[in-house]
């Protein structure tokens, strides 16, 4: 299944009637080993670009933004339990939160893998 990417280094993958969101491999490499992750409470409605989750390295906390408008459904229990799973497989098993899109047409404003790779330069 293809991924949609943001300029803030999140990715989104559609899974049935919802989506999962994570950080890109590039972002995971930049942040280093993660020690903590949490999503905003289930049911939190966010606009694109608003904080939907937080990951923390030894050094700093980093906000994870909603790629598009929607509602936070839940955090990935595996990464809440052990945030290093994000670093281990950032674009796969290390997804951070499940999300319900309220305006799926906004996906057309995100990048595909080729565009994101070009964006990284």
């Amino acid at each position, binding site marked *: 299944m293809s991924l949609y990417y943001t300029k803030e280094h999140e990715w989104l993958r559609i899974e049935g009637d919802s989506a999962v969101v994570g950080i890109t491999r590039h972002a995971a490499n930049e942040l*280093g080993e993660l*020690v*903590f992750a949490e999503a905003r409470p289930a049911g939190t409605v966010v606009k694109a670009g608003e904080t939907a989750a937080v990951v923390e390295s030894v*050094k700093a906390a980093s906000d994870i933004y909603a790629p598009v408008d929607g509602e936070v459904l839940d955090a990935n229990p595996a990464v809440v339990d052990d945030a290093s799973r994000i670093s281990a497989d950032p674009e796969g098993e290390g997804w951070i939160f499940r999300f319900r899109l309220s305006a799926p047409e906004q996906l057309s404003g995100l990048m595909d893998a080729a565009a994101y790779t070009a964006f990284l330069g």
Partner: protein
Amino acid sequence: MSTESLLHTPLFSLHTALGARMVPFAGYAMPLQYAEGIMAEHRHTRTQAGLFDVSHMGQVRLRARSGAVRDAALALEQLVPADIAGLASGRQRYTQFTNAQGGILDDLMVTRLGDDLLVVINAACKAADIAHMRAHLSDTCTLDVLEDRALLALQGPLAGQVLAALAPAVADMLFMDVRTLDIAGAACVVSRSGYTGEDGFEISVPAAQAEALARTLLAQPGVAPIGLGARDSLRLEAGLCLYGADIDETTTPVEAALEWSIQKSRRAGGVRAGGFPGAEIILAQLSEGTARRRVGLLPEGRAPVRGGAGLFADATLASPVGKVTSGGFGPTVDAPVAMGYVSTALAQPGQAVAAELRGRAVPCTVQALPFVPAGFRRTAG
């Protein structure tokens, strides 16, 4: 700030060659971390030996114009609350430059070595400290900023045997001893001290020989390069203050729980009591106490509580009792750790408080510092 405008230490090209991620720090391009990452570098230092470049710190030599080192020591005592005149040759002491309000302008290490006093100051405060010393000490002392020397730190339980293999005389040094030693052909000033809570050394080396010495040290078994990221998590677990975070111009040494660094001779009734900026305030605080104290804090759960977070009496977050000044994840503790100031009535180990994190309360327990037992070599054997 672009990296081009930043100052470089003599080890800049070595950092780059080792794959460091360079970041701006106090006007210098410094290694945040190397390929292993902060967590691994932190653990390496606690279990083996880490090599740090701290050449951005200021090294200053004071010499009495009279030729008598006591005159330089007495002059410096006018700026700091520590006993400097009583410092034996070959010994080092931690102290602070204070202001008239008893606040801290910077913290520093002072060494007496023969007729010289050697001072190591923080990079971010270097220019102000040097101006401060010139303004107050120039009548009695000549002041030389040792721009041509790098400063390396070798820290960790293997540091002693690693350095002894290159300079056998370090085997006799105890915590806070200082010696001039030839290491791999370089004329070094070595102190058995550091900023990690581990046994280890800080090595002042001529800039031209710094990279060769660093490469020699890195070639020893068990030695790895360590960046500023792990330096911060190591000092936090060790309960050591970061200037600008845990101490600053608004915190006194007594509020900061640094009164151990004010010797009896400088306290009320001592042979050279007071005589430093803010002495009336600081000496009164030593006898009467302060309204707030720096403490260690163990947040519950896994979420790091960082500098700036408010501290409250309980989870309602209704009654403020202080503020976190540094915090993060402690790789050796394997949990979040923090330091901050709380009302003195709450400054007892075991006291429960709450920190505000993203709008909610995180229960925290006041904890005696350090979080990790110190590995200093205080006695021979």
